[in-house]
């Protein structure tokens, strides 16, 4: 089966600093690729390039036959690429419900009852059902992470880019999010999961890509890479 996402020879420099040097990997439908590595080695940049917020200097990102490096972010989202951000970015003056429903109905001009129902369902799945009328700016940091996930899922993604979704979560919230992501993965949604935490990567990822300070990368199974205590993740 052809991979859903193929990233090849990705190169990116910021202000003369070479962040990525020929990074390449692929992700299949329903597969979870863990993305680890020290801070500042380009993990978030890879996600930003995939979702169109940053243009690479060279290389290609092919998603389901489309070259994403040529497309603006809203078109990429429309193709089925959803994402969360490392620092939660709620639309603070909108309610929690509005944050999600705007993503559910992004491609439509009229809000249908089923769009509202879907938004409510997603909020219930991430445990925010009873806070849907709150302004998003009032949520705790853990709740903001869950809102990010709900908003990303609202776009019906086939590929979900998760940037440190487990940061600032309580043990209970972490367990619930883990279960949610596993169920989403079983439905065939591919994921790229950025995390520094070996335990989470072991439990969720099928393969792991570790970026290095030199701009290169190592790829392998969680068992192979994460057992290497000398490898900084």
């Amino acid at each position, binding site marked *: 089966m052809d991979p859903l996402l193929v990233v090849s020879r990705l190169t990116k420099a910021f202000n003369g600093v070479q962040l990525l040097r020929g990074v390449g990997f692929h992700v299949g439908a329903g597969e979870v690729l863990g993305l680890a590595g020290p801070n500042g080695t380009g993990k978030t940049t890879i996600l930003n390039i995939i979702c169109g917020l940053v243009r690479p200097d060279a290389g290609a990102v092919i998603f389901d036959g489309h070259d994403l490096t040529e497309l603006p972010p809203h078109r990429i989202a429309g193709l089925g690429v959803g994402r969360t951000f490392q620092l939660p*970015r709620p639309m603070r003056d909108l309610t929690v419900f509005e944050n999600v429903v705007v993503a559910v109905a992004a491609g439509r001009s009229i809000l249908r009852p089923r769009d509202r129902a879907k938004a409510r369902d997603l909020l219930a799945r991430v445990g925010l059902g009873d806070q849907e009328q709150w302004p998003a700016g009032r949520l705790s940091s853990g709740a903001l992470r869950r809102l990010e996930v709900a908003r990303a899922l609202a776009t019906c993604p086939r590929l979900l880019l998760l940037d440190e979704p487990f940061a600032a979560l309580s043990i209970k919230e972490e367990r619930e999010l883990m279960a949610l992501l596993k169920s989403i993965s079983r439905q065939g949604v591919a994921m790229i999961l950025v995390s520094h935490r070996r335990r989470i990567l072991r439990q969720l990822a099928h393969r792991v890509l570790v970026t290095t300070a030199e701009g290169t990368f190592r790829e392998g199974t969680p068992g192979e890479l994460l057992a290497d205590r000398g490898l900084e993740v």
Partner: protein
Amino acid sequence: MNRTAVLAVVLVVASLAAVPWLTEDRFLLNLLILANIYTIYVLGWDFLGGLAGHTSGGHALSFGGAAYLAGLLTLAGCPAWSIPALALLGIALVGAGLGWLFRRLEGVYLLLVTLAVAEVAHELVLALGFTTPEGYTIGGEGGLPVAPLLAREAERFYGYLFWTSLFALALTLLVLYWIRCSLPGLKIRALAQDVVVAQTVGLNPDRFRVVTFAAGTAVGGLAGVLYAQYMGVAAPSTLSLELSFVAMTVSIAGGKGTIIGPAVLSYALNVLLGWLWVTPVVRLLLYSSVAILAARWLFGRGREA
């Protein structure tokens, strides 16, 4: 704006509609006509700068631009009844063009460049004047003549003009309120909140920028064409800096993006300042002072980011 506020607005508009039957006082009716027109104008900025978050510093361009288009259409021999629609279409296209041109600009940069465009237009209309073979001066400081909707000598001239402008105001309020509550309005607010996030959920910022600029400019233009047809002239003052400050400051002070707040404040200020005969210089000082004070609030979020 909740249901109670909508009901209150409907009641106020209905009450105002009775004024021409109660009095034929020209001073009062003139004051209310101008309050209607300037409130429509402020609503145009509140939609563009408040709801959509595109801080325009040159909203007078919509007002004066539409007024001058009405003047040009008059010179071209268009009938008076066709002028509002044609001028609105023209100014909406201008707005859409500016939206496209400035689609990458945000915050203070957008404010400055829009202010500059309006000022350039202001200087242009002042500079461009010519004398006809009959000896009449057209353009320049005297502005352009505009065909009025109704002859000033007509019976109940002020009453009909008041009802026309009040109807336009009520319609503007209703349409903008509907947009604010609709899905497109939610998308506009989402883009205003965080354009990066909004893009990653599938919203096209360029398309919304063009549409909101066109709509905000058209609303300001509606006020401009009503004013020009009421006054019978498109004067350079319709493009003045004061007008741009008025729109910004009243919208911010009234509750940016709330539609009803700026409308109420604009109406009250226009009636009050008109009643007190406050001179344009004092108004400019007043509005620019508020604008300076509001700047910290206006761009505070940008600095935090």
